């Protein structure tokens, strides 16, 4: 199954974009118009945030170096200018996260499907950074490196943690954490907890099936049981 990787964003609640009319003109040195919507990608180091963005912006997979501080891109979505912030997952830069998230309309929480700890970190370390995001911020949980999942491990796993063989792991970085493959159900459960944390009503929010999916920046393939095989959000005119 080969599906075009797609985080192009399409349809939902009209509350999402509240354009700030109070124009704080950008300082003399700015060169581009002020973005209308901010999207932030969060996640532990090495989960592939930068790679996902490359895939999205340039439609290719290339070698990355661990992001320093943060980087951002501008993208035109119809009439809106979207700024997409790629954050650094390294602990050292953790403190900058809430500033990046300030006023964000969407947050993509990224984990590495072959690294259970990276999912846990989302809740422990990254979720609180989103306190500065907009109240009606949209969340998506993306499991990257799905190309590395080992189906055998998934079958064995229902038993107790640690009894399963450590799965074949992803590239070079050596992590002290015991890697364990993540199942999509765990991400969906996390999504529910996030909504509760954010005091968002689960029924009126975007369904977990659509907002949690697994993908691979490397092969540009999506593994998900959602019917549309793509994540769709929307930024309708305000």
């Amino acid at each position, binding site marked *: 199954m080969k599906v075009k990787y797609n985080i192009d964003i399409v349809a939902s609640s009209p509350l999402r974009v509240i354009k700030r009319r109070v124009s704080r003109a950008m300082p*003399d*040195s700015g060169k581009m118009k*002020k973005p209308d919507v*901010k999207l932030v990608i969060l996640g532990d180091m090495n989960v592939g945030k930068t790679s996902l963005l490359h895939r999205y912006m340039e439609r290719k997979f290339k070698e990355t170096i661990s992001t320093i501080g943060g*980087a951002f891109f501008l993208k035109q979505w119809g009439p809106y200018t979207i700024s997409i912030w790629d954050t650094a997952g390294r602990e050292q830069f953790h*403190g*900058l996260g*809430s500033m990046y998230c300030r006023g964000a309309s969407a947050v993509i929480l990224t984990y590495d499907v072959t690294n259970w700890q990276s999912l846990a970190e989302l809740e422990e370390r990254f979720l609180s950074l989103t306190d500065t995001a907009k109240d009606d911020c949209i969340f998506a949980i993306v499991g990257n490196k799905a190309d590395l999942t080992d189906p055998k491990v998934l079958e064995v796993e229902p038993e107790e943690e640690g009894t399963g063989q450590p799965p074949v792991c992803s590239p070079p970085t050596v992590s002290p954490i015991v890697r364990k493959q993540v199942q999509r159900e765990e991400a969906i459960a996390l999504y529910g907890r996030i909504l509760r944390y954010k005091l968002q009503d689960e029924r009126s929010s975007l369904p977990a099936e659509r907002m949690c999916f697994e993908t691979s920046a490397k092969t540009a393939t999506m593994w998900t049981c959602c019917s549309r095989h793509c994540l769709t959000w929307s930024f309708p005119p305000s």
Partner: protein
Amino acid sequence: MSVKAFELVPAVERELLMGDKARINIECIECCGKHLYVGTNDCFIHHFLLEEHTTPKGKLVFSAQKVLHKYLGLKKPVNELKAASALERLMVLCDNTVIVVDMVNLEAVSSGGAKIKGVVAFCVNENPVNGDPFCVEMGVICAKRRTVQIYMVYEDRVQMVKEVSTPEQPCAVCLDGYFLCLALSSQYMILNYSTGASQDLFPYDSEEKKPIVKRIGREEFLLAAPGGLGMFATAAGVSQRAPVNWSESVIGAAVSFPYVVALDEGFVTVHSMLDQQLKQTLSFRDGHILQDFEGKVMLASTKAVYVLVPRPLERQIQDLLAGHRVEEALTLAEGAQRNIPKDKFQIMHRRILQQAGFIQFGQLQFLEAKEHFRKGQLDVRELISLYPLLLPSSSSFTRCHPPLHEFADLNHLAQGDQEKVQRCKLFLISYLREARSTEGANGCREDVDTALLKLYAEANHESLLDLLASDNACLLADSAPWLEKHHKYFALGLLYHYNGQDDAALQLWVRVVDGDLQDSTRSDLYEYVVDFLSFCSSLDLVWKYAEWALQKEQKVGVQIFTRRAVSDEQEAQMSPDAVIKRLHKYHQATVLYLEHLVLGRRVQKEAFHTHLAVLYLEKVLSLLSQSPAPAQQVTEAREKLQNLLKESSLYRVQLLLDKLQDTDLLLECATLHGKLEEHDKALHILVHRLKDFPAAEDYCAWASASRDQGYRQRLFHLLLGVYLGPDAPGNEHTVAAVDLLNRHAVMFDPAHVLRLLPEGWSLQLLRPFLCGALRGATHARHTSQVALGLARSENLLLKHDRLKYRGGPVLVSEKKGCQLCHNTFTEPDCVCLPGGVPVHTHCAAQRVRDSPRKRQSTNPSNHT
């Protein structure tokens, strides 16, 4: 990292400042216009005048001249200096006290009010909300715990206007509008001193490392962040630019758009704010202070002061382009847009885009190159001129100066790599095609089209012909030799034609057809020429080349005339008569042309018909004269002749008849007799000489085809007469006669026939005829009886209707009233309404007039 954005130029050298006193260090500097103030650790303020000079080589140098130095008398280092030029005051931080001194004589202003005690650090608001030009707003961090105070500094006094407390002890401050940007001991924050609202930015351990807080523009600050980052933050607490990556040991930072300059232990680094990339590194030891003053970036070690002089933007861009760093060059140019007047920027930007395009072109990145050429509105000829010989020699184009690229020409660029050359040529083809379809070729269409033609010709490109066949501006003088060189004679002919030189075109094509020149573009060039001539409007040319075309192949050549639009014939030169006269020599062509006139266009003119018939006849005769005569051809030729003789009625019959005398063409003879209505002669020939009875019957049918039944019957009777006539020997004709009768029974009048038939014939023999005749007669009788019956019954029906309408007797009396007007009848004339109701004639008429639609229902019937 090859941009040279800044040059490090010494401003105040060590000797000037401290001579040989080794223990004296620079603590702080302030620059304001030409005035440079330096504070030292031995509590001195030095005042210099800094003059800028340009050396003959174009280098910028500074010469400093010491004006004054002043000892503050505290034995403590001078920590900070800030000038308020409008007030001519200098604010000095020394020994935790801010004092205000005169900028000129460095004397403390007299009144004791101009002093603030217990100060850790202070800053000046460069964007004050209060617009009073005669005071300066100052933010002060107090040694007293966790407080920031706002002061107004006037010429002779200072006044505190606000005091705000902070959650932690601040250690660095910057002010913009109402916003204080503070470095606290464990984080940075924004504090609105007017509303008291605060906004945490991010954690930073100020105790561990000296924080940097730097205003870079309206409501935007640059801060040192963990990991040696330079973070941008707005007063609203968001980041609008990605951070720059300094080293962990960064000491100071300054902004000189579009660059962020930072100082660490060994280097000055220059990052672009536009793409966050490191652009330049200057080695600088013992760096101590880096600050920008009104756009001028100054740098100080502990012993000397330097200026970082920005190199002109265009030079930087040119450097980037020279390093083939196209994207960076463009980013830099576009980032500087707002600092350059619009028209000047546009010219510069265009040029950079064009240069960028050529760089990418040189790297064969055609897509990108094209985009840049398009955006930079490149004069296409710049590109064409790279390709040797493509621009017409008459073109007035000269390359732009200074040149947009480093290439002499395509060969230089490709370094002999033929594949590269080819790819470049293909690119130019597509580029020129696009330029033609947009306004890109405005003003130089000739150059563009001629270049395109040359490329097409060279590449054997199929679009060459399309180009020439459509609207184009190819220069003949320049293109002709090129096309000849590439043996594109057909194309050259088209070009001649496009330029109204049909004669030259035809001459060329004729030579190709004749094999004098080689060009395989069209294998059917001869047919093409014929077709061309059939449309050619110059009759002289047509005659000139028709001869040639006919000599080659009459059958094809004649199409020059047969395909010609009829309207052309209005001209006497092209009238059919004239053509036939010309075609005289060419027998086959004449025949074809006449066929075209007579059979194709059905021209009703005796001369053509006769001519054609005679030619057909001659053909038959000539075939027959061969021995042995080719049977197949004879049959075909005769068929044609016969058809013409039968179908046409315009030719001169007698003339042909004369020519047919003494020949064996009896069938044709018969036809001709038929045309003269000499049916007996014709039938005689058919029956007695040809003995072809079916032909005789056909003749009857043909000769009477457009006549009435009686005429036809007469002909059949005539034929019967010939069969039964006195000069009919034997019973051969008897059989024919019987067959005729039996087959065409209806064509005969039986009574007449019976009278004619010899007595001896058996009834049995004529059974089909008689039966047919009888049946025909009976049928006719029955049919007429049926018709009669039908007519009668129709008549009866009508009568019935009439009676029905009339009804019974209608009584009209003077006592009886009219149904419509209710007056009595005075006269017997009346009209009966359906149902027999009598009304006045005029009432009925009135009613009919009033309701025209009911007209049918009133069926007037007069009754007297």
